[in-house]
């Protein structure tokens, strides 16, 4: 019996591992359970290896489990391609296609051969072995069968009746066949609760954009962020907005700068290679002080890298992209719900301060589906401060103010005419190459960051106020780090964690006071070259003489709780 179960299905692209995982996730969400569903693929467009991992729990889920309790393997060759990425727990039950005999090295596990292909054929549903497997899993692990049937009807509702019937036959036959399988394994127990929403990080960002008042989106397709383009392409036209698929990322952010200059809240979405192309236009938005939101989903890099897998290695690019002294804001998301709040906040800051704001997520959040309560998706919305009629008399678009923010007119407003410029310019927007103007305008533009750094709620802190060891991490590392902190403190260690949501401007005072309250610091990140560590070194005083350690590695494999715990324990042992 367990109240927390993690299942994974591995096969080839056509095997339907992800569809089965989707249906299971939907059914569990309908039962009011907490769900986290992640996917991983090879680089192939169709076919190739594909996997889906679903964690189900009666408690909120902070991260995907380190190890899998229940595994379905359609092909051992495909499974081998996820070596070290999908790890079965020592007591895991592995249901594998009987026609593909298990490698010797797995003999220690609870191995159960099941003829998934035959089951589907017997049910006269030869294409639905994934659903037959779902039936087997429901029976063996006590998963909710009735909600799975409903979820299938929703999922296939728009298809021909035969599609639903065929899937239901496969499912029922799977359940029936599994009755004769005798295996001792974990079984899920839970109490039903209110149904939950099931949403990915990309979807949360798209909904947040709509809620924030974004009515113009321009984007170029790129994995793993294209779902934002898909969603807004469907929904913006329904609510009076416009979605443009551009010829490249240069045009995408160009159109966003144009749309925003014309007075409409605007956003683009991309991933690393696209962000590289957008660098120059981020500089223009900063110089011309045009609000713009750029949502960037990190994937393995550099260059084309690993488009389907996660990493935290666009940090330095987000922080410094563009030549020249370029004030911008960078906000990180640490989970699906946080993606919603970070995005609305990005619009608020962009509009209030007339700056480009980069929202940094990564594939492990953007394409991960998590359960949410609809009530958690609300966030205050602020609008642009447009010039008042008073300010429009003798209007100066770039008037130097104490806050650095100047009243912004919108084309169409009489008396508000100005020329904006990527050239350095004076208060009227007229080009100027004078040192005095440049210095004064740099100071004005950078002043805006001071007020932003002082905003509340942009740093999260976990664990005791004073700790032997303090972990600093960002973005998607927050989930596993929080779990590690909970477990370490429960076992008597004294460990705290700090996760800044605001990356630029970095809330230095809060980070410094956290550092000063810890004897040692451990920085955790998925960047081979330790980008976050180097950024922190530049911005705050980290303890020296070995008191600052870094746990950093390449992405492509999720950060596990156990690797963080061993990194912490090896430090604490040194000091005992």
């Amino acid at each position, binding site marked *: 019996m367990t109240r927390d179960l993690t299942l994974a299905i591995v096969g080839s692209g056509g095997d339907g591992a992800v569809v089965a995982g989707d249906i299971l996730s939907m059914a569990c969400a309908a039962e009011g359970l907490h769900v986290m569903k992640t996917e991983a693929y090879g680089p192939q467009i169709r076919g190739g290896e594909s996997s889906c991992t679903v964690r189900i729990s009666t408690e909120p889920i902070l991260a995907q489990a380190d190890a899998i309790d229940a595994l379905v393997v359609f092909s051992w060759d495909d499974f081998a391609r996820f070596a070290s990425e999908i790890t079965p727990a020592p007591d895991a039950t592995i249901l594998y296609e009987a026609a593909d005999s298990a490698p010797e090295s797995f003999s220690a596990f609870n191995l159960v051969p099941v003829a998934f292909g035959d089951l589907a054929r017997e049910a006269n549903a030869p294409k639905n072995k994934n659903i037959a497997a779902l039936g087997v899993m429901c029976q063996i692990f006590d998963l909710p069968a009735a909600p799975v049937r409903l979820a299938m009807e929703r999922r296939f509702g728009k298809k021909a009746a035969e599609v639903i019937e065929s899937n239901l036959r496969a499912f029922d036959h799977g359940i029936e066949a599994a009755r004769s399988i005798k295996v001792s394994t974990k079984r899920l127990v839970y109490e039903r609760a209110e149904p939950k929403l099931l949403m990915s990080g990309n979807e949360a960002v798209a*909904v947040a954009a709509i809620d924030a008042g974004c009515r*113009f989106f321009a984007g170029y397709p790129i994995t793993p962020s294209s779902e934002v383009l898909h969603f807004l392409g469907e929904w913006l036209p329904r609510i009076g907005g416009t979605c443009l698929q551009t010829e490249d990322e240069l045009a995408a952010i160009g159109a966003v700068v144009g749309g925003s200059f014309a007075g409409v809240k605007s956003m683009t979405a991309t991933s690393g290679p696209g962000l590289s192309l957008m660098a120059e236009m981020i500089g223009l938005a900063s110089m011309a002080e045009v609000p713009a939101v750029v949502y960037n989903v990190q994937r393995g890099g550099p260059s084309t890298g690993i488009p389907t897998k996660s990493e935290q290695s666009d940090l330095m690019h987000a922080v410094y992209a563009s030549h020249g002294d370029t004030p911008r804001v960078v906000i990180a998301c640490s989970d699906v719900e946080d993606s919603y709040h970070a995005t609305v906040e990005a619009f608020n800051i962009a509009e209030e301060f007339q700056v480009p704001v980069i929202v940094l997520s990564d594939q492990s959040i953007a394409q991960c589906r998590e359960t949410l309560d609809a009530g958690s998706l609300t966030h205050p919305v602020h609008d642009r401060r447009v010039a008042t009629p008073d300010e429009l008399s003798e209007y100066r678009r770039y008037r130097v103010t104490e806050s650095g923010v100047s009243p912004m007119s919108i084309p169409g407003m009489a008396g508000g005419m100005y020329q904006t410029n990527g050239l350095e310019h004076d208060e009227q927007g007229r080009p100027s190459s004078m040192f005095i103007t440049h210095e004064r305008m740099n100071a004005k533009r950078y002043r805006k960051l001071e007020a932003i750094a002082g905003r509340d709620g942009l740093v999260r802190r976990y664990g005791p106020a004073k700790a032997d060891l303090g972990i600093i991490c960002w973005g998607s590392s927050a989930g596993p780090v929080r779990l590690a902190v909970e477990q370490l403190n429960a076992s008597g260690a004294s460990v705290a964690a700090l996760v800044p949501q605001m990356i630029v401007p970095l809330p230095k005072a809060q980070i410094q006071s956290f550092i000063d309250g810890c004897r040692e610091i451990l920085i955790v990140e998925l960047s081979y070259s330790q980008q976050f560590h180097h950024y922190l070194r530049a911005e705050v005083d980290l303890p020296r003489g070995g008191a600052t350690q870094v746990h950093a590695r390449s992405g492509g494999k999720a950060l596990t709780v156990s690797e963080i715990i061993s990194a912490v324990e090896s430090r604490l042992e040194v000091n005992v």
Partner: protein
Amino acid sequence: MSCEFTYTANEYKSDLKPVWCAGCGDFAVLNSVYRALADLHLEPHETVVISGIGCSSRLPGYVESYGFNSLHGRALPIASGVKLAAPALNVIAVGGDGDGIAIGGNHFLHAARRNVDIAYFIMDNEIYGLTKGQAAPTTPLGDKTKSTTYGNPETGIDPCALAISFGASWVGRAFSGDVKGTTELMKAAIQHHGFAFLNIISPCVTWRGDHQAKEIRAKTKLLPQDHDVADRQAALRYTNESETVTTGVLYTVDRPSLLDEMAGIAGKAQRRGVTTRADILKVFASA
């Protein structure tokens, strides 16, 4: 969008003094812009002039309207964003041949293909002026420039030929020295429904020499009266010319603009029913 009160051409002049060299063809282009805006009674505050980078891209600063002197090659994406976000505005994109055909060439293709509702004026001097005299995509084969000591190894291209091939729904050519003719072509381009491209031959006295303007003037011919503007093949016969510079409306076709298509999409989307936030969240409901 046109105003109740009329403005004189002079009233579209900003208080900024052009940085161009004496004798630059762009002065005449600017005068034509003032006259075209005045003749069409366009409200200055409802007009946006957007440029990239280059000598001619300084033009928005000299016009009393909203203006955006943006990045090298990126006038068209920005102009497209402005027009889609605020369709009521008059949007004019301007720039040089290097800006529009070299670094911005990809956007030129797609703005034309999409038929986005803007007018685009290239001031074509067959050279990079602001960076002081390097070969452009429009520079003829064999020409010596600062970057082609032994002669240009590449064949120059006519932006009008590109625009016609890319699917622009209005394509014209003007000579800056003919202010009256240029003004009339600008007016037609601004009034055109869809993407209108006007290539304005605008000599560079500094890097192409005094003779360039004289030679062009001598070669300039009006399109024959019987030219069929709806005939794409006929229009292409007046492109990549060597002995003549033919001015006038080369090609025009009436086809739905990007805004028309976007309105159609909005119609289809909204026929699915009134959309509330609850409808959007229903996508993610599990039960």
